[in-house]
């Protein structure tokens, strides 16, 4: 049984994908599992959202894709961050923390 998953906020998916690739290259399913793992199952990314996002980010030059062999020796497309992607991750992280902090403070205010 999967934990209840939450709808992703606009813009969050990009950040999560960038983050999931920060440690190294992954294929599509790998990215999806990694996001589940780092968000402790809060976010489950469906292929219908994942692939369009991956291709868009590749177009924007944040990701680079190449074919490689997976664990079970299947061919899979692996994505990794480009330098532009790393910068983007930095910028998005900073932006997100600002927003998260501001929202948190707003909610704490009485």
């Amino acid at each position, binding site marked *: 049984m999967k934990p209840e998953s939450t709808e992703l906020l606009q813009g969050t998916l990009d950040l999560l994908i960038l983050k999931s690739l920060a440690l190294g290259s992954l*294929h*599509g*399913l790998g990215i999806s599992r990694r996001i589940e793992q780092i968000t402790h199952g809060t976010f489950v990314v*469906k*292929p*219908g959202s994942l*692939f*369009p*996002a991956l*291709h*868009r980010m590749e*177009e*924007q*030059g944040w990701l*680079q894709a190449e074919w490689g062999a*997976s664990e*079970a020796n*299947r*061919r*899979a*497309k692996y994505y990794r961050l*480009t*330098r*532009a*992607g*790393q*910068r983007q991750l930095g910028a998005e992280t900073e932006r997100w923390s600002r927003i998260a902090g501001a929202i948190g403070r707003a909610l704490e205010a009485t």
Partner: protein
Amino acid sequence: MALLSRIASLFRNLFRRTRVEQDLDLEVRSYAALLADEKVRTGTRSDAARRAALMELGGVEQVKEQVRDVRAGMTLESFAQDIRYGLRLLIKSPGFTLVATLSLALGIGANTAIFQLLDALRIRTLPVPHPQELTELFLTDTTGRRGSSQSWFDVLTNPIWEQVRDHWPDAFSGVAAWGEDGFNIAPRGQVRGAQGLWVSGDFFQVLGVRPMLGRVFTAADDHRGCGLPGAVVSYAFWQRELGADRAALGRPISIDFHPVEVIGVTPASFTGLDVGKSFDIALPICSQATDDAFSFLDAGTIWWLTVVGRLNPGWTLARATAELGTISPGLFQTTLPKEYPRENIKDYLHFKLAAYPAATGFSGLRQMYQDPLWLLLATAGLVLLIACANLANLMLARASTRERETAVRMALGAPRSRVIRQLLAESLLLATIGAGSGLLLAGLLSRFLLSFLNTQDNPLFLDLHPDWRVLGFTIGAGVLTCLLFGLAPALGATRIAPSEAMKAGGRGLTASRERFGLRRVLATSQIALSLVLVAGALLFSRSLRNLLNVNPGFDPNGILIADADLTQIQTKLPWDSRVPYKLQLLDRIRAIPGVKAVADVRFLPLGGGTTDNAVWREGSDSSHAITSDFNWVSQDYFRVMETPFLAGRDFDSRDTSHSAPVAIVNRAFARALGLGPNPVGQYFRRQSTPSDPEMDFEIVGLAGDSKYRDIREADPPIAFLATSQELRFANYSVQIVIRSSLPASDLTPLVRHAVAEFNPEISVDFGLFTDTLRDGTTRDRLMATLSGFFGLLGLLLASIGLYGVLSYIVVRRTNEIGIRMTLGANRREVVGMVLADAALVLGLGAGAGLAILLVVGKAVRSLLFGLRPSDPLALGIAIVALAAVAMIASYLPARRAARLDPMAALRWE
């Protein structure tokens, strides 16, 4: 962002669709497979796992569709961004933008204009339904065809046409015939020409041309003795002469002094089958016999009808030809004319009809101009290439000033393809603007070209509205130029390692050789191409000069031509009075003060009309025959033409239809027959003709050589016979040549007045002999003018290019020059260094240009007169001119280098 990445992905998405699709498909499927593997590992059975995985995926196709949407949207959005960025850059440097747009517009415009003419003349099919089915029926071999031919086209006689009409084979769904003629639509005593067509009854049905107004002819209109059942006029004629009045139907117009009722108007799209002309009035073939005396209907040796057939669906030319082959023997047996010269009867009986493609119509203009136009297209293409090389250089320069910006962006991780796309966006914008203005310019240019080709005696009509082929050509030229001048700089700008570029922008010594490489190659190819252009221009202008300097054997200046139509009067006179009547008219003109000499002549030299026959010496036989040209002239012809008269006597009142036939021959004739220096008093024999049996002529005079058919030919043997001995010429209008010291504008009204006084029924048409001759060199003048223009343009562009490259090199080597000067190099050595650079480019370019010329030279040989494509003078002048221009272009940069202050140069960054 990244314009280039947009264009690249546009390419990927549009042109490499299948690869992208396959890639995407593989990716989604591999996701499903991995998911299934995962489930198998947790204990699910493999087929159940696969099903579950696909379900979780939510459908392979849906996922792919979502990805496609994202990609398409991204592509458009980023493309627009790159275009906006490119526009901003162009607006920031208006000078560059102006020069670039102008040279592209000129280059693309010239190319499109020439292509437009070629398209109209050569490629476009006739505006009739299913033009591909149209074929021409003509002889496979015309050897032994005798008689008189009335057209440039492949023509047959009316008896042959009638046989084809009555016995056409199954291959065709219909056959039709047409012939061109000039009609006079003015009342008696005046001349106003109209382009006439004789057409068979179902001509319009076979072509599928429906009337816009009224009706067109049917087979029922075209029968022997039809008289003048009516005229079908063209849309243009209806607009011009009939005021576009619907009530003009049923109204008579005057055609060769006969009233003919207008029965129909053809649609504007149909202008006849002769591409390059537009017909005015069509009459049925049977109407040609209105005047019995001139009827061609039973003439077996007058060739005047072009026959077309429409192939039945499924039939090929080869099968149709085979069928025609089987009916040919019977057909030519039936039509063999009684009067056919006996030595050619065998040839006539062996004639064979065959079917030839005719979808693009017929055109004398095409034969004359298609080679020159292809050549001009190639020339204009070279100019465009040179312009592209210049632009590439400019783009390179711009790219190198932005080198640091590019380097920074690449260092920050922008992929190379992105930067390339962005640089290309700018080129694409320029190419689009250039192609757009080029298209507009082409409309003007092609009209100018057409008016250049338009001559008084041969009015042209070409449908020049741009069609999809012209548009496609322009777009193709635009895209090609964009890639040519945009891609190389973009690739070059992004090739260097960022660290290098950032250093280079700082301080360098001698900029690395490799960076200059592309520029040098560009400049070298510019020099090579412009050498080709300049040499071409010189070749064509020298060829034209050669032509104009040819001595034709007569002096055309000061000769007025008067075409007098006496036929209506002559045919009412008894045969014996016709020649005297004409001589009286000549006498009347001769009496005009200022007129030096007057004569009449059957064929004006170089005027298009010709006839030749086999002749041999008295006592010899036809196996020793030579071919000689023939002309018929009256007394004083040689005085009018100022052709030297060398021996014997001129024609005079002794030479009549009752006296023995006499001839005046030229020196080439005497030489060819081996008659010795003075042939006067000797005889020659002429082979039988459709109108005369074999005949002997006594040579009474010897004249100097002169041209006959073409100014380019070697002096041909000509025998001049006396018009006074040929009574049948009374059936034609009289061509009178008048030599006078008066200007034509003064003389014309005097002659008109004299003729009207003589008989007001005679219509006269005037022309200048020099104009007729000028028309004969139109093609040569066109080539000389346009290739001269392109040559200058190419030279100018190439010198700008060379100047740009050398200036750039000097700037890049400023530091180096400073060091050299500090170490003791003097100014002359510095100048020498820069000029050596220029000389290298010039030498390599000129060498390459010469090599190109030698290869392509063969293609122009037939268009040149009196010199070969490898003419050393033309090539030499071209090289000298190019060297001079190159030296001027390199002088400024060299001087700038020499004036550098060593200290400033060392500090220079």
